[in-house]
C-alpha cells in the first residue's frame, strides 16, 4: 500500500520535472549564454538538494517498478513481495549513498 503511494508520488514528480527539463535544455537553441545561465541555477546548493531528491525519486520508482513487474510475472516474487519491498529500499540506499557523497561534494565542495 505504501509502495503504491510512493510509486504515484515519485511518478508525478518525475513527470513534471521532465517537462521543465526539456524546456531548460531547449535553451541550447536560443543561445549558449541563455542555456548556461539557466543551467547555472542547477549548480546552486538549493537546486543541488532538489536534484538529489529527484534522483532519489527516480531510483525508488525504478526499483519499485521492477518489483511490480516481478510480482506480476512470478509466483515466487508474489509470495516474497514483502521481502522484495525491503530489497527495493536496500538497493535504493546502496546506490543513493555513494551518489549523495559525490553529488553533494560537487554542489557544496565545488570539487
Amino acid at each position, binding site marked *: 500500500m505504501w509502495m503504491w503511494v510512493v510509486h*504515484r508520488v515519485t*511518478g*508525478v514528480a*518525475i*513527470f513534471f520535472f*521532465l*517537462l521543465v527539463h*526539456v*524546456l531548460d*535544455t*531547449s535553451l*541550447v*537553441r536560443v*543561445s*549558449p*549564454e541563455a*542555456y*548556461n545561465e539557466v*543551467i547555472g541555477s*542547477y*549548480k546552486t546548493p538549493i537546486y*543541488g538538494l532538489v*536534484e538529489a531528491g529527484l*534522483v532519489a525519486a*527516480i531510483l525508488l520508482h*525504478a526499483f519499485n*517498478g*521492477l518489483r511490480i*513487474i516481478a510480482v*506480476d510475472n512470478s509466483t515466487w516474487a508474489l509470495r516474497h513481495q514483502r521481502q522484495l519491498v525491503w530489497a527495493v529500499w536496500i538497493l535504493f540506499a546502496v546506490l543513493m549513498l555513494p*551518489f549523495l557523497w*559525490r*553529488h553533494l*561534494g*560537487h*554542489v557544496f565542495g*565545488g*570539487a
Partner: protein
Amino acid sequence: MTAASSPRPAPSLKEPRARSGRLRPGAEQWSWRFMRISGPLLIVLILTHLFINLLTGDGVNQIDFAFVAGKWAAWYWQVWDLAMLLLAMLHGGNGMRLLINDYAHTPWLRKLLHGALGVAVVGTIVLGALVIFTFDPCPAGADPSLLPSFCEDI
C-alpha cells in the same frame, strides 16, 4: 435417464456489459504492456544519463552549452536522448492518464485534464525532437569561449 445420455445445453450467459465505447478493446492491455516494456528500458537509459552527467568528470558543475554540444556531436547520444525523450514522455503521460482516470470524477474535468495532458506530451516530444535535430554546436556570432573546442576548426 442419465445425464450422459441427454446432455442439456449449458445455460446461455448474458451479454457482458457494454464497454464505455471510448477505448478500443485491448487498448488498456496495450497500455499495461507498454509500461512494462518501457520501464526497464527507461531504467537503463536514465541511470546511464544520470551517471554520465552527474557522476563522471565534475558532475553537475561540468554541464554547460559546450558539454551538451560535445555530447550531441556523437550520433549515439542524439539517439539516446531521443529514445529517452519519447519513452519517458509516453510512459509518464500514460501514468498521468491513469491518475486522471482515478481522481477526476466529473466528465468535463476529466476531458479537460486529458486534453491538457495530450498537449503537454505531444508538445514536449515535438519541441525536444526539434532541439536535438536542429541543434547547432557552433552558432555564428557566439562567444567562442562558450563553445566546444571543435568549433575552432570550422
